C-alpha cells in the first residue's frame, strides 16, 4: 500500500473503532436507564401479559384519586393513590410536590416498585397546564372520562 492509502486506512479504521465503541457504550448505558411507562391497571394486571417486577424502575401515569392524599404530620412524607380505569396503585413520595399537584389531576411519577401495588417515587411531575394530561395517559383513557367521571374529572 502506498503511504497515503495506508494513512487513510488508519484513519478510517480508527473512526470505525471509535464509533463502534461509542455505540456499544451507549447501548450498555441505555440498558440501565430506560424506564417503561405503565398505567395503574397495567401494574396490577400486566402489560401485554408481563407484570413489572418488584424492585423495577418505572414510570407511572394516572389520576390522583380525590381523598387519598395523606400527609405525615412531622415530615414531608406523602402517600396518594393513582388510578386509570381499573384498581388504584399507591405512590409514596418524600419531598415537595409540584405546584400543580392536585386531587383529580393527571400526574406522572418515576420511581421503583416496592410492593405489588406500591411505588416509591423519586420524582413527581404535573404540568403547568390545568388541562394537561400526559399523552400516554390520554391515549389510554380515550373515551373513558365520560364513563367514570368520579375517577377522572375531579379537578377540572
Amino acid at each position, binding site marked *: 500500500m502506498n503511504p497515503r492509502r495506508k494513512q487513510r486506512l488508519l484513519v478510517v479504521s480508527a473512526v470505525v473503532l471509535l464509533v463502534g465503541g461509542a455505540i456499544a457504550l451507549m447501548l450498555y448505558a441505555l440498558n440501565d*436507564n430506560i424506564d417503561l411507562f405503565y398505567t395503574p391497571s397495567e401494574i396490577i394486571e400486566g402489560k*401485554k401479559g408481563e407484570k413489572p417486577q418488584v424492585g423495577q424502575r418505572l414510570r407511572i401515569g394516572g389520576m390522583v384519586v380525590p381523598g387519598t392524599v395523606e400527609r405525615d404530620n412531622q415530615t414531608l412524607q406523602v402517600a396518594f393513590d393513582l388510578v386509570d380505569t381499573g384498581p388504584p396503585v399507591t405512590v409514596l413520595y418524600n419531598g415537595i410536590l409540584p405546584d400543580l399537584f392536585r386531587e383529580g389531576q393527571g400526574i406522572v411519577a418515576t420511581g421503583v416498585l416496592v410492593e405489588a401495588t406500591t411505588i416509591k417515587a423519586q420524582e413527581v411531575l404535573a404540568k403547568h397546564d390545568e388541562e394537561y394530561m400526559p399523552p400516554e395517559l390520554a391515549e389510554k383513557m380515550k373515551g373513558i372520562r365520560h364513563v367514570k367521571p368520579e375517577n377522572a374529572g375531579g379537578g377540572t
Partner: protein
Amino acid sequence: MIPELGNIALTLALVSAILLAVFPLWGAQTNQSGLIATARPLALGMFTFTLIAFVCLSYAFATDDFSLSYVAQNSNTQLPMQYKLTAVWGGHEGSFLLWVLMLSLWTVAVAIFSGSIPQEMVARVLAVLGMVSVGFYLFMLLTSNPFQSMLPFVPVDGQDLNPLLQDFGMIIHPPMLYMGYVGFSVAFAFAGAALIAGKLDSTWARWSRPWVQAAWCFLTIGICLGSWWAYYELGWGGWWFWDPVENASFMPWLAGTALMHSLAVTEKRKVFKSWTVLLAIGAFSLSLLGTFLVRSGVIVSVHSFASDPTRGLFILGILVVLSGGALLLFALRAASLNSVGRYQTVSREVMLMGNNILLCAATLVVLLGTLLPLVHKELGLGAISIGAPFFNKMFVYLIVPFVFLLCIGPLSRWKQQSVKALARQLITAFCISLVAALLIFFSYSEQAYMAVLGLTLSFWILVASVLEVWQRIGAMDSQYSIAKRLRMLTRSHWGMILGHVGFAVTLIGITLVSNYEQERDVRMLPGEQITLSDYTFVFNGVSKTQGPNYESDVGHFSVYRSGEKLTTMMPEKRIYTVQRMPMTEAAIHTTISRDLFIALGEPLDDGAWAVRVYIKPFVTWIWGGGAIMALGGVCALSDRRYRMSTLAKFKKASPLSSATGEHA
C-alpha cells in the same frame, strides 16, 4: 386595520422570498448580472416586510387587540407593558414570527456584509436563504398565522400570558436562542451555494467562518440564558434537565462547535472539505429537527407548544426537502472533492478531527436519547423515557478524551508535531492540574471522586492554555516586551483561548455543583430553623402581598453564617389571578463561590410550610463560562481580517478577492 396590514406584509415577504429563491440563482447560473443584482434588494424587501408584520403584531399586543386570537390567548389587560411586548413571542405563532424575522435579519446581514465576496456567489447564498425562507413563510401563513382573527366573537379580556413566561429571562432568551438556531442557516446557505456552483474549495470556508462564529455565539448565550432561567424560574434549582427541548438546542450547538473547528482546518489547511460541508448541512438540519420536536407536539416538555399534527408534518417536510436536497447535491458533487493537504498522524489536523468525532458522538448520544422514546412508541413497543443518568454517564465517558484533545490540539503544530515535546508539556500541565484538583478535593469534607476527575480536566485545560500562550509568545521576536507580544497575538487566537477557558470554567461549575451541592426539603413552622454546612436559615413566617396580576405569599427567612446575620431572603408563592395558576419564585443569594437558594413548597396544616433549601457551590460559573465562550466568539469575529474584508467593500470592488474566488 393594523392586523390586515400585518397579514399583507407577511404575504409580501413570502413573495419576496420566492423571488429571492429564483431570480438571483437563475442569474448566477446563466451569468446575467441584471438578475444577480436583484438579490440584495429582494433580501432587504423580505426583511422590511417581515419587520412590518412584527411591528403590527407588537402593536396589537400593546393595544390589547383581542380580536386576534393569538393576542387573546397570550395577553391580558392587567399584564404589565414589558410583558405585553414580550408576549409577542410567548406562544407558537408569534415565536415563529420572531423566528422568520431573525432569518430575514441574517439574510439582510449577509447581503450587507458580503462586499468582498464575488457577486454571483452572494446571489447563490441569498437564493438558498430565500428557499429556506419560502418554506417558513408558507408554514406560517398556512398553519400558524398570528394574525388569525376571532371576529365576530371578540373576547372582553385575554387569557393571560403563562406566568412562567412573565419574567426577564423570557425577554431575552428566545431572541438570542433563535438568532443562534437560525444563524446556522447562513452556514447552510454558504455550503449549499458552494455545492450549486460546484466550487467546494477553501474559499467558502473562509467566507462562512465569521457567520458560523456569530451564530454560535448567539446560540451559546441563548442556551446559557435558558439554563439560568430554568434555574431560578422553574423553582427547583436544576440548571439542566436533559429535557427534549433543551436537547433540541444542545444538538445544533454541539454540531456547530464541531463545524467551527472543522471550518478552521478547511480554511487553513484545505483538508476535511467534504466533512465540513456535511457538518454545515448537519448543524442546520439539527436546528430544523429541534424546531420540529418543539412545535409538533410529539414530545412532552415544559417548553413544547400546543400540538397540531399538520404543523409537525409541515416542518418535517421542510426538513426533508432542505436537508435531503442538500445531501443529494452533496452526493453528486462529492466525487470532485479531493483534499490536497498532507499531514502526519500526530498533528493539529488529527487532533481537530478527533475533536470533531467526539463532538459528533456527543450529538449522536443526545439525538439517540431524545428520539429513542419517540421511535419506541411509534414502533408500538410501548412508552419509555430515558433518564438523565444515561446522558450524564455518556458525557463523562466522552469528556475525558475530549479534554485530552482540547489540551494538545492548540499546543500542536499543523502537519506534524513532535510527540516528545508535546508529552513533556502535557505531563507538566497534568501534574499541576492534578495537584490543584486534589487541594480542592481535600478542602471539602465530603468525598467525591468524580470531583477530582472533573477538576483535573478543567485545570488541565487552563494550564494548557497558559502554556500555549507562553509557547506562542516565546516564538516571537524577543526584542519586544511580553505585554507587546501578547498584544501581537491575533484576536481570533484570543478567541480560541477564551473559548477554551470558558469551557473549563463551565466544567468547574458543573463539577462542583454536581458533587458538592447540598439540598434539604423540610417542613418548617414559623420560628424554626435549619442548618446546612455553615449557614443557618431561620423561618420568620409568611406574609401576603398583591402584585399587578397576582397574589403572593412571601416567606421571610433570615440567614446566618457562623452566627452572624448575612441577609434576609424572601421566596414567594404566587397565584396568577387570571389563570389561577400557582408559581414558585425562589429567593437566591449569589456570591462568586456559591448560591443560597430557598423555594417555598406548599402550605401544610397549622401554619407550617414545605420548604426547599439548597447550597449550590460555584453554580454561576456554569453560565459565566458560557459568557466567556461567547466573548471568545465575539473576539474571533472582530479579527482584523474580517474587518479588512468589510473595509474592502467600500474600496473599489477589489480585483484581488474576486480573483481568489475564481482561482481557488
